[in-house]
């Protein structure tokens, strides 16, 4: 049973990751909407987003750049960064840019679901 407004936007260039993540969320009654690049997200995503799961390494605009752009526009929605390659320097940069949380691929589904639920619940209180 889907819960109202529980919608997560996913930006990742890897098709298998997008598909499997959407599937995982659906099985946990969370709706997913995915984009294969930051550029596609910027072009087509709605203005008001409850939660974003964002990959870092992508062709074109990178996840980090997108994160910075969104924060620069004053958008405060929870953004969970996922990446297959995070080193300490990059990690610090991502945090400084305003990521809500950061997970390395492959990640524990419970950890991600907990973060998402927390983000959505917070958004619900704030909104």
């Amino acid at each position, binding site marked *: 049973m889907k819960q109202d407004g529980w919608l997560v936007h996913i930006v990742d260039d890897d098709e298998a990751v997008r598909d*499997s*993540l959407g599937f995982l969320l659906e*099985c946990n009654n969370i709706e997913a909407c995915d984009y294969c690049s930051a550029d596609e997200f910027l072009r087509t995503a709605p203005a008001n987003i409850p939660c974003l799961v964002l990959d870092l390494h*992508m062709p074109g605009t990178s996840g980090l750049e997108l994160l910075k752009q969104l924060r620069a526009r004053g958008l405060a929605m929870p953004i969970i960064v996922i990446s297959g390659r995070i080193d300490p320097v990059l990690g610090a940069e991502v945090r400084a840019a305003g990521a809500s949380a950061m997970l390395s691929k492959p990640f524990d589904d419970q950890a991600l679901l907990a973060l998402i639920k927390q983000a959505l619940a917070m958004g619900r209180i704030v909104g």
Partner: protein
Amino acid sequence: MNSKSDKAGRAASDSASDGSIDSGLRERHGLFTALLETAVDGIIVIDPGGLIQIYNQACERLFGYRADEVLGRNVKLLMPSPYHQEHDGYLAHYHKTHERRIIGIGREVLGQRKDGTTFPMYLSVGEGTLDGQRFFVGIIHDLSAIRQEMAQREGADRLLAQIVQSSDDAIISKTLDGFITSWNPSAERMFGYGAVEAVGKHISLLFPSNRIAEEKEIMARLGLGLSVTHYETVRLHKDGREVLVSLSVAPICDGAGAIIGASKVARDITERKQAEAHALALQDELSHVGRLSAMGQMSAAIAHELNQPLAAISNYVKAAQRLLENDPTEQKLKTAREAMEKASNQTLRAGTIIRYLRDYVEKRDSARSRENLNEVIREAVTLAMMGHKHRNIGLSLTLDPAIPPMVLEKVQIQQVLLNIVRNALEAMAGIDHAELTISSAADAAAATITVRDTGPGFPAEVAGRLFQPFVTTKQDGMGIGLKICQSIIEAHGGIIEARNANPGAIFTVRLPLSLKEADKA
């Protein structure tokens, strides 16, 4: 004749031209004057006191004094020190003792010009008597030109000798029948025999027994007036060890152009040959190092690549687990099975990545096998695209299915292709219409692989030197990648070429179809 000459011809105390003498005498006088003035050598007549009586035109040229400046003056004027001071003494001594030192003989002395400079001359002195009066005739032959030429020739000879002495190459001359006539210090170093030992011996001294015939061939060429250049062969050191040499032999001719011997220049290439062998071994090693170094750069990318399917697998499995909880419906079971199928596919994807990785890193013994070239290309391209932000790059693979199986070293050929494709991808980073076109084709003799990109091409300054080591357009590049590629392709008997295609660059690799498995890579 000018007035100066007339004066010279007349001589200081001449009274024979007063017009009172008969025609025979006049004729003789004319002849005498002509003789004096046309003589190329200087002619001076002095009286017993050393005062100049006659001084011809040639003398004016030699000494720089005009006749009227010297006539009646002491001849020592024309001599440099110490003759200048001693000449009066010589004359007095002669008058007293009649002991001849130069008179009637002649010798080489120095003359002094008006400007104080001196010159070598051959002076012959004769003695005569006229009207009871003694006189001395000096004939002066200028030696400066001859001396200068000799000095030059000696200088040239000395220079030549120094060059021969100091040359790093052994320089040996020999007669036509092979006897050594000269032997420089490098010959001594190279072959162990001293010049004293070697000169006079037969050149066969240096020949290994199985190469004696070479001398006959070389001499036959020389007989035809031809040279032998950079002929690589083996000679023997005194201690019996073999010396690898590069020989240049040229005929030596006498002044008339007849061949009288041969000069032989030998360069010791033992070290060069060893260095070449060493370089080959190093290249083998370098190829491995190159792989590892590229590995270092790639490992992060590959770890990233591997984490994608792992993340997907984890997601699918966890989702399926979720679906299977609490007595699932038929629909949930079906979806769970689909998820497991997708997870399984992702494990295969991860496995492929790891297999490529292992193939790439392992240094294998040179081993050729029969391969499907298109399969080799496909795998290399897959590996090259891995970990690259290639989403916006159009890839077109046009592989000719008619290429027969080829004998090659798969991992090495893949390394070359990987290098070329990764270069192309890097060149096209951030370009709008990025297209990578890879094709294969074959004719009767060879298969050709073509990789074309739409990047900026090569800058003019490196275009001609791409395959030299340490040439790179990358800021942090070592510039050894393409050099390794070239050695690999050449080891396969093939050719690798690069050119600008406008836009972009084209790399072409041609591999012969005829390589045998037994050939060493």
